[in-house]
């Protein structure tokens, strides 16, 4: 009989780990509180740097776990330590005994309305990166003007922001903003597109090429400076004040759409899981790995492993690689190695 491994979280980390665990001969049981698998990626339209389909990725991962037990709209209500493993109790009444648990609870998108100066939730045409992806997916909304003449992107919304309680860099926002700016420019070639950034952290494969293309081929203007204030004009356009720190001048521009690059913050619900399973948490609210070099997948408890953004901001390729690594770590643990 195949051994159970409880995978908490059905995002791309949980899905990829479950696929690997199936291939390694285990019985992964995926517990997902939403009514669908794929997490945040399932809400996205295209993924950088190849502008590949997020839906295709989620479908491919889903095809790989058709033999797994999957509980949707289900939460973990309690984790009991047994002599040789854990008893995981679920909100649907199912109790699962297992020797290993994989935590893949992911992140929470920063609530952009907390940066009140940007006016998300107050001004009609201020949206987030997630709203824009949803619109790309065909979910129309009055908040998106039909033919915008000027569009702005604000980087680092709720990332590297001590006042917002998030000191960490969310890693993906810079390249996501470049991607989304290009996509908007492709849809609206006559629109002027501005990116307001404090640093550009384009560290990944093809990222820099993407950034150069954004400027050379698409004429996207990158302005090093933070947006200080957003207001609304009589015509319903957005008046955005910012500082251009390279020219050393304040600037004011009217836009038809402002996209806030909401960052990754810790999933607050993971704190309850951490309390039940006595897992260590970091000062940033993410789960703390045993070792950030050699033990990134390991927790402070035997048999409990991590994958993906539950330990900090990750890109999709990093998340998938961590998920496979976590599956191997679980396999080694089960084998007593």
């Amino acid at each position: 009989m195949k051994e159970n491994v409880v995978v908490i979280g059905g995002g791309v980390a949980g899905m990829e780990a479950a696929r690997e665990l199936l291939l390694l001969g285990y019985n992964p049981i995926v517990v997902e509180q939403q009514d669908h698998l794929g997490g945040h990626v399932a809400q996205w339209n295209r993924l950088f740097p190849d502008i590949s389909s997020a839906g295709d990725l989620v479908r491919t991962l889903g095809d790989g776990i058709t033999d797994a037990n999957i509980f949707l709209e289900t939460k973990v209500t309690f984790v009991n330590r047994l002599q040789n493993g854990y008893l995981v109790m679920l909100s649907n009444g199912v109790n699962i005994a297992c020797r290993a648990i994989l935590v893949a609870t992911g992140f929470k998108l920063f609530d952009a309305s907390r940066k009140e100066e940007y006016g998300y939730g107050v001004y009609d045409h201020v949206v987030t990166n997630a709203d824009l992806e949803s619109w790309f997916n065909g979910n129309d909304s009055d908040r998106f003007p039909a033919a915008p003449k000027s569009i702005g992107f604000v980087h680092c919304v709720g990332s590297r922001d001590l006042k917002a309680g998030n000191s960490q860099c969310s890693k993906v926002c810079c390249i996501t903003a470049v991607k989304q700016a290009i996509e908007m420019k492709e849809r609206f070639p006559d629109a002027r597109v501005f990116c307001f950034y404090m640093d550009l952290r384009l560290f990944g494969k093809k990222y820099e090429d993407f950034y150069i293309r954004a400027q050379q081929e698409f004429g996207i203007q990158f302005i090093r400076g933070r947006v200080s204030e957003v207001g609304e004009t009589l015509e319903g356009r957005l008046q955005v004040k910012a500082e251009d720190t390279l020219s050393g001048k304040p600037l004011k521009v009217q836009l038809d759409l402002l996209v806030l690059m909401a960052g990754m913050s810790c999933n607050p619900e993971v704190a309850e899981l951490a309390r039940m399973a006595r897992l260590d948490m970091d000062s940033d609210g993410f789960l703390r790995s045993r070792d950030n070099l050699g033990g990134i997948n390991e927790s402070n408890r035997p048999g409990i492993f991590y994958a993906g953004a539950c330990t900090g901001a990750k890109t999709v390729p990093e998340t998938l690689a961590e998920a496979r690594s976590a599956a191997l770590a679980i396999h080694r643990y089960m084998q007593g190695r």
Partner: protein
Amino acid sequence: MIYEGKQKIWRDYQKEIPDDHWYYVRSCIRQNFFPASERKFTDITQQVLGKDVYETPYHTTCGGIAYHCDAIPQETVMTIVARQFALMTEAGYENYVPSCVTSFGNYVEILETWHEFPELETRIREQLWKACRREFKKPKYLAHTSDLIYHWRNEIAEKARVRLIDKETGEPVRMSEHIGCHYAKMFPSKGIGGAEYPYVLAGMIESWGGQVVDYPERRHCCGYGFRQYHMKANRGYCVSNTHKKFESMEPYGIQAILTNCPGCCYFMDRWQYVIAEQTGKTYGKDGFGIPVFTYEELAGLVLGYDPWDLGLQLHQVAVEPFLDRIGVEYDPKAKYLGLNREDILRPELPTNLKCF
């Protein structure tokens, strides 16, 4: 504009305001700018609302104006403030309400600093004892006077004799609110409604029948800015900021502005004269300016006080068109009669800004 979005933010920034027993301290500059406002605050709170609002003549400046002009160090300001708290303690009060927004910001900043650095509070206590043999308790509650008028706004509305309704059209008058920077920009959680979309004045306007109008430069500084204005060479910068605000609000048909800061009210009123003289441009209807009121003045108008008893003749911008609009009765001939009913003389009229 998504009004519900603002309401959500307003719900997040509320503060506990005791309903009675306040130790009241006046501003050092409001007495000169709009001298009736503070007197009317005590009249309204004590006589109309029946509240216990106590003040003492031994109160001095809080030092905030010198602090924000970089003229004295913060420890000196703290010792002055410690003495004010000692006066409150000796009077048997624990709720402290300053009339000046900069004082309010100053008190908040000092209390927060003492909270973070208790050793500094200990040193200030020692300095106060050495200087004047006084001891103090920190206020249990700290509010600005506009917080109290906001808190009692519905009681004022119940007693209102005038509503902020255009008597010709029956429509709410279109008003903008302007919050002093030191009210909530330093500590958003200490202001009603926070720093970006403050509700303290908007709540009064709504309760008294008016309509709050937003405009793109609503959050911009009035132009005073302490060390900008007080350095004479920088005054052009001050007026340019005020000019920016009025240019921004021009298309919105704003009929009056409500403020809660001594400097904001004064400069947004007086600079309209300077702008009119420099550029020939006025922002109200028919060559008038847009009147700028303190919250005590507006509360007084709503409660039916005589506008000249509220000191409205000391405004640069003529208030009469606004009084006519909301149906306030007044005697134009009494505008320049003092409290003793003798002539206080008439100011010279501007060239471009229409006044009476």
